[in-house]
């Protein structure tokens, strides 16, 4: 086990950088300041006024999280090619979001929507469907926040810091500056986070292959190591190419994860903070720079194999920090750890804001206090964001961290079930809200049911052992695997379509649509002031 006394330099560098960004988090309250933060548009969306560069850092910091940087190479380390799904996944997100997100931005700008459930509420006129979307969003986001803590924990473990106190302190600081600065805090910190991440990765992919003897050596030793038999399954551990059984899984996992990513409430939070349509479209061309980075990060898994890194305990999440520890001088390893640690703060902050906004808009304002003022909304969101983070810390303190990982796996499948109402809703409201609600519930049931059936031979778990569903479990005579979320969302869509046909034929009443076709293409004129800070839809505030 590593000991903290051997890692003094790393700890000092890590702590200094961590304190630096914490200071920035507090200072962010005054950055690009509006008249007051007592409004959800200000606290939760940074005034809906971020330009191309800020949005690029904010979205990049939001979508590529510390856990990604730790877990993707860990998967490549353990299984090989299948872990590289992260690359196609983060390529095909952007062309889809290019169309859907700009329309969602326009309609949200026009009507003052803050969450995906706000949009569903307006589009389909159904509080029930909106509530289902909001709850799905909150449930899917919570474990994602907890996972960011696991990212920090992996780094601390390698530096020999044990116990939960440091993580509790780190999250406490995060909670307080998010409370006071809102979305401005992660937006400002994202500059530091991404500068550090780019620096670390560029150095890593030059220095480490040089030290190990080149890329062909790295891929060669990965091929040999993955070809060894896994005693738990009797099959090879993995392969540096896809095999006949996991090609379908690779495709559906990449596609399903891509569809899920922009449905997560925190992605929409960053998108809605953009000042106009152009900002979003430009970002959909520029954000793949991070995908390139993620591909290189994934390959750290093979570098760890070639360098003979052994995970601490059974925690493969420690391989990347261990690799840095072995390959770099102490001070630079400290910078690397800070990059991962700060990489956890940005998304955790945005996610807690998104979850808090969902609660405020779609539970509190809808059901508990219909006449809430904008100031009351902002206050509720601020407090909820604290509660959400305390919840994440409690998960780590009192539950097996593996539990958070399992929950996040389920979360991805859950959030995908909001696809028909949110993403398709942007284009059509042909699907009836009752059918959408039923489809959503059916999709959740199918998804959770399938995940429950999946064992993990490596840790002896019988249920929730992964997201790769062996078709033989469903009685098919094949070992091919498929991503659960993909099957669940198909089931969801089939139910929604069939039930819509039945409902329309039976003459079910239609619900009002608060949006009009033109709303999906409105844009802010250059130099227009931020939208009216009244909490009411922009259109109503104008008259």
């Amino acid at each position, binding site marked *: 086990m590593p000991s903290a006394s051997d890692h003094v330099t790393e700890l000092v560098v890590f702590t200094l950088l961590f304190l630096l960004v914490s200071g920035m988090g507090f200072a962010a309250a005054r950055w690009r300041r509006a008249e007051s933060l007592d409004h959800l548009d200000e606290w939760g969306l940074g005034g809906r006024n971020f330009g191309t560069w800020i949005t690029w850092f904010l979205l990049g910091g939001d979508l590529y999280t510390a856990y990604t940087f730790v877990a993707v190479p860990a998967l490549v380390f353990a299984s090989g090619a299948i872990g*590289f799904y992260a*690359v*196609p996944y983060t*390529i*095909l997100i*952007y*062309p*889809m979001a*290019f*169309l859907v997100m700009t*329309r969602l931005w326009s309609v949200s700008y*026009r*009507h003052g929507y803050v969450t995906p459930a706000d949009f569903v509420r*307006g589009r389909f*006129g159904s509080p029930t469907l909106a509530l289902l979307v909001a709850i799905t969003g909150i449930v899917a986001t919570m474990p994602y926040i907890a996972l960011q803590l696991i990212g920090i924990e992996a780094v601390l473990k390698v530096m020999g810091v044990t116990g939960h106190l440091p993580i509790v302190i780190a999250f406490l600081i995060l909670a307080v500056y998010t409370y006071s600065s809102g979305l401005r805090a992660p937006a400002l910190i994202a500059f530091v986070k991404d500068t550090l991440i780019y620096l670390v990765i560029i150095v890593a992919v030059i220095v480490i*292959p040089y030290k190990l003897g080149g*890329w*062909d*050596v790295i*891929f060669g030793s990965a091929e040999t190591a993955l070809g060894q038999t896994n005693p738990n399954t009797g099959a090879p551990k993995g392969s*540096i*190419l*896809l095999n006949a059984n996991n*090609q379908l899984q690779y*495709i559906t996992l*990449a*596609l399903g994860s891509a569809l899920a990513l922009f449905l997560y409430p925190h992605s929409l939070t960053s998108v809605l903070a953009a000042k106009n349509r152009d900002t979003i*479209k430009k970002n*959909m*061309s*520029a954000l*793949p*720079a991070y*995908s*390139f980075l993620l*591909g*290189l990060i994934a*390959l750290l898994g093979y570098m760890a194999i070639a360098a003979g890194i052994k995970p601490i305990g059974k925690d493969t999440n420690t391989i990347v920090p261990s690799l840095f520890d072995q390959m770099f001088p102490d001070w630079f390893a400290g910078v690397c750890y800070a990059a991962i640690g700060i990489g956890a703060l940005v998304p955790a902050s945005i996610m807690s804001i998104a979850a808090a906004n969902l609660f405020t808009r779609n539970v509190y304002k809808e059901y508990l206090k219909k006449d809430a003022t904008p100031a009351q909304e902002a206050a509720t969101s601020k407090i909820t964001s604290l509660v959400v983070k305390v919840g994440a810390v409690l998960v780590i303190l009192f539950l097996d961290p593996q539990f958070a990982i399992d929950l996040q796996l389920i979360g991805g499948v859950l959030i995908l079930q909001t696809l028909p109402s949110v993403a398709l809703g942007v284009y059509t409201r042909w699907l009836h809200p009752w059918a959408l609600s039923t489809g959503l519930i059916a999709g959740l049931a199918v998804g959770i049911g399938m995940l429950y059936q999946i064992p993990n031979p490596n840790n002896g778990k019988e249920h929730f052992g992964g997201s790769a569903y062996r078709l033989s479990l469903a009685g098919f005579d094949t070992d091919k695997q498929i991503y659960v979320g993909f099957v669940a969302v198909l089931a969801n869509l089939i139910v929604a379509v069939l039930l819509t046909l039945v409902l329309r034929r039976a003459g079910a009443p239609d619900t*009002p649509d*608060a949006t*009009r076709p*033109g709303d*999906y*293409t*409105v*844009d*802010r*004129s250059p130099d*227009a*002031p931020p*939208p*009216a800070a009244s909490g*009411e*839809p*922009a*259109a*109503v*505030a*104008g*008259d």
Partner: protein
Amino acid sequence: MSSPHPPEERPTGEAPRASDRSPWNWVLLVPIAVPLSTPLFNHLTPELLGFPLFYWLQLAFVLLGVGCTALVYNRTKRRD
């Protein structure tokens, strides 16, 4: 939301747009379909700088994505 149908007058600062339809949008299908076509890149050779095809070609698809979205952005930009 106070009324299901907001009045037609737009508040100041909003520019109406007719439509976001364009035939150029079809180009966006390319960077979605290509990275999902595993038979295209699930091979070791030809290698590039020691990278098997599976790895370097998928990294190259990032550029394909950037190129296609940039092209569509450029072609569908509103001209004043």
